[in-house]
């Protein structure tokens, strides 16, 4: 098991290097940068701009910039955000935490609802429950995240039950710690539900079909023939085996979750990595774009790593490879 973990960890290093190199190259190819706009500002002399450029090594070719960047990142320094005028490290870390919080909550909600629903639909195959679930799944798979987020905003504005966007109320700083916590939870609920809804349908359908496949297996018939109770057969024998293939889609669902979070963050003003990427993109703050893309990738890669560990833990055949 340990050698497997080590192998997977080592595999992540060239991947992240490649991703950072690719995004860096894309940034270098882009026309104009933050200083193009600064140069047009008559209040800032060209000398100042040139000095700033030299300070951030932006007057050097892109591969030299990349070497500087990677050296800094390895020592835990993500550089300086030119648009925000603060250290990019604290900015990125705060946003990374927000995106993680949003995605993780959505993940818990989605799997917490999808698994029981999928089992229910499979056990009551062809009943109205099953049909309602499959209709719900089709609708859920087809509602675009953009529309769902807009509807959620509209819902929040119309009922006043939830705050309209953001991650904390303007008065957050004056609240007691307990109130601050509830304030955050209150802001988190709606975006997390929206994000979970888009993922829920796929997991539920998968759970249903996996359990149905398992229920057709011979050992299930054998267990029934021995007179075991139906509940025991399903939950003790079939479900355990049906969960395994689901762990493989856990990794895929993370990717779609992060892309979904990108949309939800931007529409519902949740200050996460996705929103930061778009803001940095418009401000032409290229280092910040690279930083956030690399961090989002790292989050995804780490998630996949956890998914693989779960799979290796539940299925001994994988560990041996």
């Amino acid at each position, binding site marked *: 098991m340990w050698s497997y973990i080590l192998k997977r960890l080592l595999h992540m290093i060239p991947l992240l290097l490649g991703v950072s190199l690719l995004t860096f190259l894309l940034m270098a190819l882009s*026309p104009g940068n933050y200083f193009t706009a600064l140069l047009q500002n008559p209040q800032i002399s060209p000398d100042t701009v040139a000095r700033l450029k030299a300070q951030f090594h932006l007057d050097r070719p892109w591969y030299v910039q990349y070497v500087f960047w990677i050296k800094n990142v390895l020592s835990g320094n993500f550089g300086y955000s030119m648009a925000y005028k603060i250290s990019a490290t604290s900015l990125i870390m705060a946003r990374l935490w927000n995106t993680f919080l949003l995605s993780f909550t959505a993940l818990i909600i989605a799997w917490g609802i999808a698994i029981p629903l999928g089992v229910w639909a499979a056990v009551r195959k062809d009943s109205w429950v099953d049909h309602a679930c499959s209709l719900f799944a089709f609708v859920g798979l087809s509602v675009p995240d*953009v*529309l769902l987020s807009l509807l959620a905003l509209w819902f929040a504005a119309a009922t006043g039950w939830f705050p309209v966007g953001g991650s904390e109320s303007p008065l957050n700083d004056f609240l007691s710690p307990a109130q601050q916590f509830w304030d955050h939870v209150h802001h988190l609920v709606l975006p997390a539900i929206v994000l979970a809804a888009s993922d829920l349908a796929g997991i539920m359908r998968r759970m249903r079909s996996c359990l149905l496949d398992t229920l057709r297996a011979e050992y299930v018939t054998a267990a029934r023939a021995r007179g075991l109770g139906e509940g025991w057969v399903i939950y003790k024998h079939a479900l355990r085996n049906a969960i395994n293939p689901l762990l493989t889609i856990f990794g895929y669902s993370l990717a779609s979750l992060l892309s979904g979070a990108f949309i939800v963050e931007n529409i519902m003003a949740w200050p996460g990595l996705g929103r930061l990427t778009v803001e940095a993109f418009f401000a032409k703050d290229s280092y910040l774009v690279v930083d956030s893309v690399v961090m989002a990738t790292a989050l995804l*890669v780490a998630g996949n790593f956890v998914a693989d560990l779960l799979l290796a833990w539940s299925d001994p055949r994988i560990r041996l490879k």
Partner: protein
Amino acid sequence: METAITIVETPPALSPWRLFWHRLRRRKIALTGGVTLIFLYAVAIFAGFIAPYRYDQISDNAFFHPPVWPGLQGFRLVVPRSEQMPGDFVYRQVSNDTRPLHFFVRGGKYKLLGFIPCSIHLFGTDDDNYPVYLFGADQFGRDIFSRLLYGSQVSLSIGVVGILLSFSLGMIVGGIAGYFAGAADTVIMRFCELIMSIPALYLIISLRNVFPPGMSSSQVYAMIIVILSFIGWASMARVIRGMALSLREQPFILAARSLGQSHLKIIYRHILPNTFSYVIVAATLSVPYYILGEVVLSFLGVGIQEPQASWGLMLNAAQNTEYMQRFPWLLAPGAAIFITVLAFNFLGDGLRDAADAKSL
């Protein structure tokens, strides 16, 4: 004594495509999806004719005009008139003031099928004071129904063109990687993994950064397709590569090789056709991702630009919660996206079941 010899006639063997069609025909949901899509694409092709107005036709006294539906008066369809009340975009219908709705009326000029100059519209009124805004008007007083139709030309075609581009690339690259295996395979697959490990929308924004702002509308259109295809080909290449890896060990490939066929011809004639049923199903199920990709780009303001119409760009106007509450018809493009994606999912699901030879 005569022995009766009965000859049992076996029905002629059906071709795989006929079998496929037989299985598909039994899935009503898939057919519903298919028919819906044919309808949507037909409407998109004839958008200029069906839309009563041009996508950029602005009306100064119809900002956020509510939807207007023709009513029956005797045996005629008539359009009521609304007048703007004092206040923020409040309209009131004027009673007993209508104009008949005409079919095949003369209106603004457009190009039918993109090249035939024409000015006949399916329906409309002759008088501009009696507008037919089926889905209301937007913040510039433009007809949302017309913009929806013009926008569908962009949104619907991007999906198909993007799929054609990225899947052909994915098939060729994946076929080469799987067939030759070895070093070429390793390099190509590592690159695919690289692309697939970046969350799609983050990669889209980074790619968007490469293109300059202020491009013409057709350049933007091409740019969106290039961006989406750059991301989409990787997953296709990976699956095709897996199929090619197992196909290259099959006897019929060995036979083709011993007959001296060139490598490229083997990939093109023998390997890729064996992946077609998978490719068609995967393509149908992937089109929504391309449509949604365009929606997100335009929604964020880095895709299709005003005054052009696209579903994502139109949804952008609904981002303002006050507008959304007072003028819910701004969400019409969201409904259009939903119906399109649902239809593709219905059809793709049915195709997948029908392509599975084990299912009956």
